[in-house]
């Protein structure tokens, strides 16, 4: 059974999983990173079959304070959260303690039975219960040895569960037995499953006197919930699933209702919400079913499902799901919406994603920056008014289509292309949205050609043309100039047409915003121009002075006359030049 081979740590930070090739893989679910892969040297001869998280030695003290909600007990946060350890059971009867923090085996405990350990459970992480063939084994982690061993029945034990706060355990094969550990006697037998039970989980809704447990078997497509306190031997509630159980997370909300999230073999998550109180005859159907698919984009009809491997409640509404394959898993927090029967998440197939190993070490995530980014400046980033979203796709009314048709015909009829206008080509370009045609037309800067073209344009193409010109105006110098030229002519020729358009503001808004932001520089530019011209005139004035004197200097003076005044003026000129 695979249910014992995967588990979330108690705080939900880690997810551990024994792959089919016997390797232990550990993921950090919060930062969504594949942390460790441990290949035991015995993974081929005696592979590990089951695992269970246990808190590390030093974290135990803090743990008892952390569990209860503040209502129940005065809560104390530990100084720091420590990484848990994992216990592994192998087919050769060995129990291993693996430490995530040091990424190595801490210790190995040999049961000397060579029976395959099929399941593990612990409450206080001190005494560990496990099932091996028909026997129940009790181990002590601290003393690192097998404490007790007793026969649990005639069938192979497939699942075990330690019950908190009292010395009782549940063992299961087809039927589930409640044991008193001290007396080694069976207190109660729960029957109902038709095949071997592979999953057991304890549920405690609020008060300790109402204790329940949930079980799932390898043949039945349902989860059963049993009461531990009443003498009812039948299931209190049953939950229907589409396949057999793989992993279940239970969350007891503040109002006492129990939320169940169950992952099944087929890779979907069923979410149930039920207040455990008395017997219900009718089996429950899932309130919501979560499903992850990848859209490869190759065909419109089919999507490939991605298997969800595990699920855990982060809080009352948030679930953390891990999906992908045995090799690559992705973890994600999702809000469960109670109103949708099926919640389908479209994700990229984790196999096709590349994760840089270096970034994982550096704990940095490089965001995606690709071609779809819009780089804008204030010039190009304004939009006119509120764009109210219309409900569906806008159908072009028949009237408009006819209009297009007739106009084309009219143009076609009078088609004697003249050199002084390019209206026909432009219309073609706008209709076919061909970038090259548009360019050849619009890049004509000849004033008369532009005017003639604009005059001959039908009304219907004005709006797409203005939209195209908006991009030009948003651009750099040349394209902006061209855009302005065209727009100027359009406004002059078709002003009345445009005025009557109710969407005028929306149409011209982006252009206006761009013009406005460009104009902000006008005043400083003028000022700079003024100053520059002042400076230039001064410089040129002094230059002309210089050149006049230069002529004098180049020629050999006829007479050198030592005059104080002239030497002074020379001095001044040099100063100015500096």
């Amino acid at each position, binding site marked *: 059974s695979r249910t014992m081979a995967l588990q979330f740590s108690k705080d939900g930070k880690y997810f551990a999983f024994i792959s089919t090739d016997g390797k232990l893989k550990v993921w950090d679910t919060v930062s969504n990173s594949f942390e460790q892969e441990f290949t035991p040297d015995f993974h081929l001869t005696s592979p590990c079959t089951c695992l269970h998280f246990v808190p590390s030695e030093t974290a135990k003290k803090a743990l008892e304070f952390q569990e209860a909600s503040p209502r129940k007990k005065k809560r104390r946060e530990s100084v720091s959260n420590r990484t848990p350890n994992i216990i592994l059971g192998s087919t050769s009867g060995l129990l291993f303690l693996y430490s995530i923090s040091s990424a190595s085996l801490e210790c190995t405990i040999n049961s000397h039975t060579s029976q395959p350990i099929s399941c593990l459970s612990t409450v206080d992480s001190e005494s560990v219960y496990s099932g091996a063939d028909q026997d129940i084994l009790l181990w002590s982690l601290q003393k690192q040895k097998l404490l007790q061993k007793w026969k649990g029945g005639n069938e192979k034990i497939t699942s075990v569960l330690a019950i908190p706060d009292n010395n009782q355990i549940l063992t299961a094969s087809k039927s589930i037995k409640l044991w008193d550990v001290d007396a080694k006697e069976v207190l109660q037998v729960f029957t109902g499953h038709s095949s071997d039970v592979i999953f057991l989980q304890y549920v405690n809704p609020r008060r300790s006197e109402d204790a329940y447990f949930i079980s799932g078997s390898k043949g039945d497509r349902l989860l059963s919930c049993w009461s531990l306190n009443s003498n009812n031997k039948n299931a209190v509630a049953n939950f229907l699933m589409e396949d057999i159980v793989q992993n279940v997370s239970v969350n007891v909300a503040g109002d006492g209702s129990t939320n169940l999230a169950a992952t099944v073999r087929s890779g979907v998550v069923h979410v149930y919400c039920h207040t455990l109180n008395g017997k219900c005859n009718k089996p429950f159907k899932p309130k919501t079913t979560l499903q992850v698919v990848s859209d490869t984009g190759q065909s419109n009809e089919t999507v490939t499902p991605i298997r969800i491997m595990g699920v855990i409640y982060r809080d009352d509404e948030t679930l953390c799901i891990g999906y992908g394959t045995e090799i690559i898993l992705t973890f994600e927090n999702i809000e469960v919406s109670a109103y949708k029967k099926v919640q389908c998440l479209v994700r990229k197939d984790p196999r096709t994603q590349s994760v840089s190993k270096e970034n994982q070490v550096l704990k940095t995530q490089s*965001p995606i920056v690709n071609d779809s980014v819009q780089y804008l400046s204030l010039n190009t980033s304004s939009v006119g008014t509120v764009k109210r979203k219309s409900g569906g796709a806008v159908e072009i009314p028949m009237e408009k289509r006819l209009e297009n048709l007739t106009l084309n015909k009219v143009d076609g009829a009078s088609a004697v292309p003249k050199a002084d206008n390019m209206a026909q080509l432009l219309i073609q370009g706008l209709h076919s949205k061909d970038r090259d045609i548009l360019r050849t037309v619009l890049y004509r800067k000849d004033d008369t050609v532009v005017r003639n073209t604009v005059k001959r344009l039908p009304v219907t193409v004005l709006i797409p043309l203005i939209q195209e010109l908006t991009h030009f105006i948003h651009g750099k110098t040349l394209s902006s100039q061209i855009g302005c030229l065209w727009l100027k002519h359009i406004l002059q020729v078709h002003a009345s047409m445009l005025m009557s358009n109710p969407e005028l503001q929306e149409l011209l808004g982006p252009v206006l915003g761009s013009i406005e932001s460009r104009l902000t520089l006008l005043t400083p530019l003028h000022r700079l121009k003024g100053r520059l011209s002042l400076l230039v005139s001064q410089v040129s004035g002094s230059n002309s002075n210089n050149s006049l004197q230069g002529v004098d200097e180049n020629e050999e003076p006829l007479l050198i006359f030592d005059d104080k005044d002239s030497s002074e003026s020379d001095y001044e000129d040099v100063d100015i030049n500096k």
Partner: protein
Amino acid sequence: MAEEDVTLIFKGGGSIVGHKPIFSSDGENVYVCWKNKILEYSAKTSKLLYEYEGSKDPIIGYDYFLYDSFPCLAACTTTGKVTIWKTVTYYKILEKQIPVKQIKDFSVVAWENEGDFKGLVSFMYKNRLKFTLVDVKKCVSKDYSFSIKLEDQTHKHYIGISGSKYFSVAHRNEVYFVRLNDRENYTKCKIQDSRTFTCITCHPSEEVVLTGDTSGRVVVWQDIFSTKQIQTVFHWHTLPVRAVCFSTSGSYFYSGGEECVLVKWQFHDSYEKKFLPRIGAEIEHISVADNNTCVAVSTRDNAVRILDNQMDQIGLIQHLVLGKQYESGLIYDPRTKALVMNGNQGHIQFYSPHDMCLLYSVDVVGRNKITNERDCVMENIEVTKTAVSRTGVWLATVEERRDPVYHSELRLKFWKFSSEQQRFELNTSIEYPHDKSVKNIQFQPMSNDDSLRCVTLGDDKKFRIWQLVDFTTVYKTGVVWKSFGVGFYRDLNCCGLSFSVDGSLMAVGFDKITTAWTPDLCELKCSLVHPSHKEKIKYVKFGYSNQCHLLVSASALQLSVWNLLTLCLLWTVPVRVELLVEDPLSTYMAVLTSNKKVFLFSPISPDLVYSNEHLLKKHAKVIAATFVPSKYSNDAGLKWFERSHLHFIDSNNELYYISTGSSTEFIPDLVEDVLENEEKSAFGKMTPKLHLTREQGEPKKHLFKKDVNERTFKKFLEAPIHTMAPVRFTCYSLLKSFIIQKDKTNT
């Protein structure tokens, strides 16, 4: 549960790079000093293994050595308490108080005789730094005759020690070499005045010393106990060398500095060197494992990077990234349930306070860090503001390069969290969204991401509304953020921004005027001002749930609450507001004052829900704060501090939250504040801690009053009765003149 139980709970931060990291002898573990603790990390997985906690005082020096042939860890606190732990069992095996005061440094002397435990301690004595060899077991110390005069604190001193043979001290431009068993003699050498030593280390077995200086040279000193030492210069760094470290055998060494480059030098050939460039931040310390398999490099961003012997990074020990600033504040990200804040230069970090771990950093700027040049400080692009939309799908970042001389850069980026790829994807990048820097940014709190809006507040006295619009060109389709409108008010500076809970209204503070606008149309709805409030508004916040019609505005001196339905002032309180934070789960808001008081109130009444004047008194200045919903946030029966936690980061880069529980955090020694002294004075006793006035009779102050109205009223009163028209004719115009006139000129 009594309110007195409310204390501060430490949630991360604090430097782990103040001291050199130390490897265990097998190179498996690395020890890092963090405040009053020593943390043991696995070098392989960079995960925390154990915390050694000695006393409340911070640790000044620690070392790993063999004691009674067991590997042990010794630490000395500022008060001289020395503790030894056995690292195999984690047991504390010795605790002694050494008879030295004003301790500056502590290092263990690895004596041949293993039963001995001696430490080299430096201490201040009358402005001089003296050295002494302390036998910790016997508590006897023997002073060295030589001492260094420390006039001012500007120049640090550096100590290197080599086994049990000798030690060397560098201070300013002088270096001293002393034999450990010779208390009288020492040799000394001076370098040029223009250079100052910045680090020192000794060869593990030979008499060779390495020093680094401010000019970037690494000098090898040989023949150190002769009068004429031999110097060999290894010069590659341009900036001061911050750390040098020998390999175990001493055949090569590492150096690093502010260039963020690790250099590996061959000891016998200064030309043969290897580089590891672009380490995330400036190098502070370097340490090599005994078997040379690993190198630990402490960097200024509060990280210890573990490199293998090929100089490839294999591990990173980092909790809260300590950046240079936390300008973008603390922002709660609902998707990852983490806090988003500034991290490394150009990065934002996602730090999970629940399990006190750094999830990841996101490189927002996407540029290599430019390190300083020798005489020139290089400005890098910094992330100055961030905002997360309510769904956590959109992230907006503002980045700015504040060049004091040349043109500065300003960019607004909108990132979308791609659910398919589980990564952020850049959607729109806008150059110069404002003429000057951006002061505030917020998303409209909508649970639906279509036509979402975002508002930026600029230093150019304008705010700008950005809107998510569909865009279709001939070539592709998608969504893009575009500017939808600009708002300004009387050419006043804007500060403070808040959205109402449904996003239909937003409030912006303009100087002393609080204004409300509709983000959908960018229209001014109302402007509110109290004539006696002259201070600039720092924060505006809308109330939640049944108090969503209330608007709290806070200036440096006043906190006032306006009712937007009646447009009148509900109450006002003089309080020096430093930070105003709202709890998204309740109606409460928290005020942190400039004199370190905490108040919690509900906008509906000026009665305090909770107040504490002593909680933050001993703490450094709070820089940013936010409420984070706790795990039990749905349980409405819990107290405010249990449902959501008020997290804040202080100027010591430490993150705390306010709740109940045992306060395990370390509180630094009290630094007397001027403010406290003022309060103890006679004048201070006369002023109450909090002024509360309920001003209900102060409603309906006009923005402007036309005296025309007064005139008509006067005319009515002064005119003789017999000349007046019948009352039913004058009544309407008279009453109309009493009605408040809205200012329509500015809309």
